[in-house]
């Protein structure tokens, strides 16, 4: 069950020295959810992807890349 979208969540989180739990709290999701997105087990919905983009103050396509593109 691998996602069809790559993401830079782990890198962006590391740049800010946030743990998965820190990021989970900022996004109001579980740490397990952050881990699943980072490892590509789960592709977030568009609303959650927008929340992530807003949190990192980046355009959504600088965080998520379509593997099929």
């Amino acid at each position, binding site marked *: *069950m691998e996602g069809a979208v790559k993401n830079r969540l782990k890198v962006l989180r590391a740049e800010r020295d946030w743990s998965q739990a820190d990021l*989970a709290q900022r996004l109001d999701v*579980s740490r397990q*959810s952050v881990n*699943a*997105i980072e490892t590509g087990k*789960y592709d977030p919905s568009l609303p959650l992807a927008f*929340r992530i983009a*807003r949190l990192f103050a980046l355009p959504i396509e600088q965080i998520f890349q379509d593997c099929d593109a």
Partner: protein
Amino acid sequence: MSASTSSTPASGVTGQPAWRRYIGRYMIGMGIWGALFFPMIWAAYSHRLPGAPWIYIVTAAPAFGVAIVVWSMLRYLEEETDEYQRLLNTRAFVVATGMVLVLTTGWGLMQWFAGLPKVSLFNVFLRFLACQGVATGWVRWRAR
């Protein structure tokens, strides 16, 4: 939908408010089921059940607790804001339902046509709960 900076830690499924509400409602449903089921069984075995039409109401009453449990699952799926947790728990509910349907159908056919012992239908709810436990463990293990 804004980026939330809620002070409530969302460190895992048990920390989610929707999950806590689900467990609370689930326990209420189980409590109602037990409070109606065990006295009814006692009444049945001690020949104290009322006559018709009350016997139908008294003997079917524990199913009301089952309805509360099913309703609590529906409410949880509507209220859970963590979409990944919702996905995992939806999977667990579907797998548990599938296990009960497959096992019940298989056993029913073998009971009718292969001479297996008859199994009562009234405890299918307990079988579902057992399957839900197995399904939740399996889904969480796959997602680890």
